[in-house]
Each structure stands twice: as C-alpha cells, then as structure tokens.
C-alpha cells in the first residue's frame, strides 16, 4: 500500500518536474540558436576547404596577403576613425549645450537625429551625389568657390565621412545623451567655471571623461557600421573594404568566405566590447 503510494508520489514528482521544464521555451531557443549558428558554421566550413581533402587556413592566408585587402581595410578603418572623431566633435558640444542652456532645442535636435531612419543610405547617397556633383559657387554669382566634391579624392572623403556621421547620428546622439543624463552636467560645469576653466577645457577635460563609457559604445557601434559599409562607398567610388569584398565575391569563392567569417568575428568583438562597457545593455544599428 505504502509502496504504491510512494510510487504514485514519485511519479507525480516526475511529471511535475517534466512539466516544469519549459518545453516550448527550449524549442524556440534551439531553433533560434540554429538560425544564428548554421550560416556561420557553413561559412567557416566552406572557407576551410580551399585545398581538396584538407581542412586548412589557406583561404585566410590568401585573403589577408592580398595587398588590396590591406589597403581597403586600412582605408575603412581610417574612415571609421574620422567618422567617430567628427561625430564626437559635432554631437558632444551640441548635447551638452542643450542640457545646460538650451532645453528648448531638444525636440528639434532629437527630430533631426531620427531623420536618418527615414532617409536610408541609398537615398542619402543619391541626394549627396546630386547636390555635390556640381561646383560650389559664391552665392548669387558664377564664381566657383570649390570644385564639385565628387570629383576629387579629398572631396569624396569629406562626403563619405559626412554621410557616415549621418548614418551613425541616431546611435551616437542617443549614447551621448544617455551618458550625460547620468552625470550632473550643470554642477560639473559650475565647479569647473568657478575654478576658471574655459568652455573648451570643460568639454574636453570634464565632460568627455565623465561620459567615456557612452562615447565608447557609440564609437564601437559607428565602427561596426562603417567598416563593412558598401552603399555609400560604392556609389561615391571610395576604395573601402565593403566594395572590395563584394568585387572579390564576383570572381573568387574561398577568400570571400574567409573574409566574411573574419568580419563576423570583428562585429562580435565590437559588440562584445559594447556589452562590456554598457553592462549588458544591447545596442542596435541598421546599416543593411
């Protein structure tokens, strides 16, 4: 009698335990994990099979040795750095000033920072090309101030960095603004002013160090957007990594797969660092 009851209790415990295992949660999670991993695994597997019957890193060696890879990748990194610097120089003083003196400008500035969501990269580059492919004149005269920006290298560099600043604007602005919310900008400013600091000193030596985590996460996100970017680069004719990878894919098989996997690792590194600095707050972008 007692033993059958024990048996029943044990059985019920078992059932309860099985019921407590969230079957559907596991199901969706595993499906999601497969969706994440399969394309990466397939790319890695393919990239390792360059030599017949041998698993090896030959494709990686070939890809990284190509001088054109080195130059385009370097170019992309330099552009990313320029974009990050330009974004910080443009956005930090603006966000600071709004917080300190000009709260009435908040709405309009926030509206502008959302505009890049409405104007995707392909539209932005369309507009940029149409505007800056004619020479810049002194207003109301025929005197040419500057050759069309699209016709010389420094010109297209300026255009592409400006375009990237625009694409990164929503993320950078939000990062900086959130960063400033957590520090008492007004008190810091007054303290610095009472010690005789200039505006430049206040921003560079007081505000910037206090929002460095936010800046870093904005910067890494910008980096992730810029390094693989294709749309702006290919239409403006700037020799960066994105268009190079695209062209490589037209006439090679293994090296592009190797570089694709490598850029996945790079994205992961950037995102991992963001996680580290923002304490697990995921960030999202959208330069697809």
């Amino acid at each position, binding site marked *: 009698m007692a033993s059958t009851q024990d048996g029943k209790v044990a059985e019920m415990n078992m059932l309860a335990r099985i019921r407590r295992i*969230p079957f*559907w*949660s596991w199901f*969706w*999670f595993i499906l*999601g994990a497969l969706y*994440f991993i*399969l*394309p990466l695994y397939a790319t890695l*597997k*393919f990239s390792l099979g360059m030599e017949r019957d041998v698993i090896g890193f030959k494709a990686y060696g070939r890809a990284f040795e190509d001088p054109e890879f080195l130059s385009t990748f370097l170019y992309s990194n330099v552009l990313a750095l320029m974009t990050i610097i330009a974004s910080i120089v*443009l*956005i930090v*003083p*603006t966000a600071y*000033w*709004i917080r300190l003196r000009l709260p009435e400008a908040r709405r309009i*500035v926030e509206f*502008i920072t959302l505009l*890049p969501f*409405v*104007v*995707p990269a*392909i*539209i*932005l*580059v*369309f*507009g*940029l090309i*149409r*505007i800056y492919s004619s020479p810049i004149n002194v207003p109301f005269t025929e005197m040419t101030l500057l050759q069309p920006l699209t016709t010389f290298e420094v010109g297209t560099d300026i*255009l592409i960095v*400006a375009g990237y600043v*625009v694409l990164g604007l929503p993320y950078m602005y939000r990062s900086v603004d959130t960063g400033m919310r957590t520090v008492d900008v007004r008190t810091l400013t007054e303290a610095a*002013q009472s010690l005789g600091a*200039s*505006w430049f000193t206040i921003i560079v030596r007081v505000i910037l160090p206090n929002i460095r985590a936010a800046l870093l996460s904005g910067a890494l996100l910008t980096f*992730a957007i810029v390094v*693989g*970017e*294709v*749309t702006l680069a290919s*239409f403006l004719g700037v020799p960066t990594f994105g268009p190079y990878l*695209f062209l490589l*894919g037209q006439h090679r098989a293994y090296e592009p*797969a190797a*570089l*694709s*996997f490598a*850029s996945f690792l790079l*994205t992961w590194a950037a995102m991992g660092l963001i996680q580290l600095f923002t304490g*697990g707050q*995921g*960030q*999202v*972008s*959208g*330069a*697809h």
Partner: protein
Amino acid sequence: MAQTALKPNAPLPALDWKKWLGVLPFFLFALLFLVLPSLRLVIGSFTNNDGQFTLANIIQLFEEKSILDAYWLSIRVSAVTALGGGIFGFLLAYSVTVGGLPRPLRSALITFSGVASNFAGVPLAFAFIATLGRTGFVTALIENLFGVNLYKQTNFDLYSFAGLSLTYMYFQFPLMVLIMAPALDGLKREWREAAENLGASATQYWLRVAFPVLLPSILGSMILLFGNAFGAYATAYALTGGRLGIITIQIGAQIRGDVLHNPGLGYAMAMGMVVIMAVSLVGYSWLQRKTERWLK
C-alpha cells in the same frame, strides 16, 4: 563666451538668440548633409527636364508597372520579414525572460542578437550563399537527410523572394529580441499576482493583461523591422547581384546611370521611399507613446 561664463544663471533676454550659436554647427551640418540632399530629391521629383514645375513624375510613378512591381516586392519582403522576424523574435525573447530558461542563456542570446543585428551587407549575403546556395551546407544536409534537392525538386531559390526573406531574417529577429527583452522585463510581477489572486488562469493573464500591455510595443517593433528591411540595399545587392528588382536596387540602377531616361522619375522613386519610411516612423512613435503608458 567668457561673459556668459561669469554669470551662468542670469541670461539676458536680449542676448537669448546667442544661446542658439552653441547648436549652430550641428544645424549647419544637418542642413548640408541631410536636409539639402533630401530636399534636392523632393524638388527634383516635381521638376521636369526643362526645370519647370510638374506633377508628371509623380503620376508616372503610379503608371510605370516596373516601378510599382519594385515597390510591391520591397513591401512584401519587408512585411514578411517584419512579421516573421517579429513573431520569432518575440517568442525567443519570451523564452529567455519569462519562459523559464536558465539565466546564462539569456545573456548569450542578447549578445548574439547584438552581433547578428549588426551583421549584414556583403558578409551576410556570402554566409547565406554558403548555407543555402546550390552547393550550400544546409542544401546538402537536406539532400542527405531527406533525399530532397532544394533546387531540383522544389521551387526554392536563394536569389529570389524566399531566399532574400530568409537572409533578411538573420538581422530581423535579433533586432526584435533586443527590443522585446527589456519590454518583457517591464511586465510587473504584481500584475501577475493580482490576476492570480482574482482567480485568473495563466492563459487569461496572458490574453487579458500581459498581451494588451505588450501589444503596442510588439506592433511598434514590427514597424521598425519593416523600415529596417525596406531601406536595405547592400545585402540584397550582394546576394542577387541586382537581379531581384526591389526598390532600393532599382534606385541604385538609376543613380549609376539614368536607366529610366527621366531623372525626375528617379527622384520621385526615391521620394516615394522616403514617404513610406516616414509613415512607418510616425506609426512607430505613436505606438511608442502608447507603450510608455505601461512599460517605461
């Protein structure tokens, strides 16, 4: 500058406009590289080849079948991936937040979603070619396991609507996870307890409390996913080489060379995209405000 520094809290009303000088560089930048380029496209779409005002481009936009097809294809791809990615992403976010999975899986999923939602463009296209292309890993796997060749025995093609949608899903559902996980965290424990105390079942709690609270957030996020796919160019271009005529690829062709033989029509095509994106953003922010009533 130094003058204002001396009296920080006493701005003279007469000098009020000077405050605006501080944000002038930002506005100037936005004007030069965001507003003017967009305005150029708007003006261009209302101008004919002789530079006069016309509505012909806008009218032609609705008459040209190839353009309408391109919009429609883009809308379909974006809607399908927004809906599919939205539902799948929600279920994933649910399973790691309130679904009872171990805590470490949650941070793993969030990290991976952050990476995947940023992993797009050419590398993503190549990854999917290695996965679901003619000789792709999964294509071969399915043939070995089930004896079905996707390309010979079914209509599947990676370089088509279905293939592009599957590829877009790779950055769509992670984006949903990233947005929904915090929203699901925002469901208050008290609501569930109150519902249970009043005798509600788990299903009733979800249908009548949790889901209505989450609905604006879910719909808003799906709109965001829609815009995310609608504006995408590089992934589609790298995947299909420009053969699949979604609207961004058509616009790209128009930028490269005036394929429509009417620049104004190209501008109108671009403006049409901006209008659709703007409508989605308005819808998104409206839903966002509704969300904030319950979830902050």
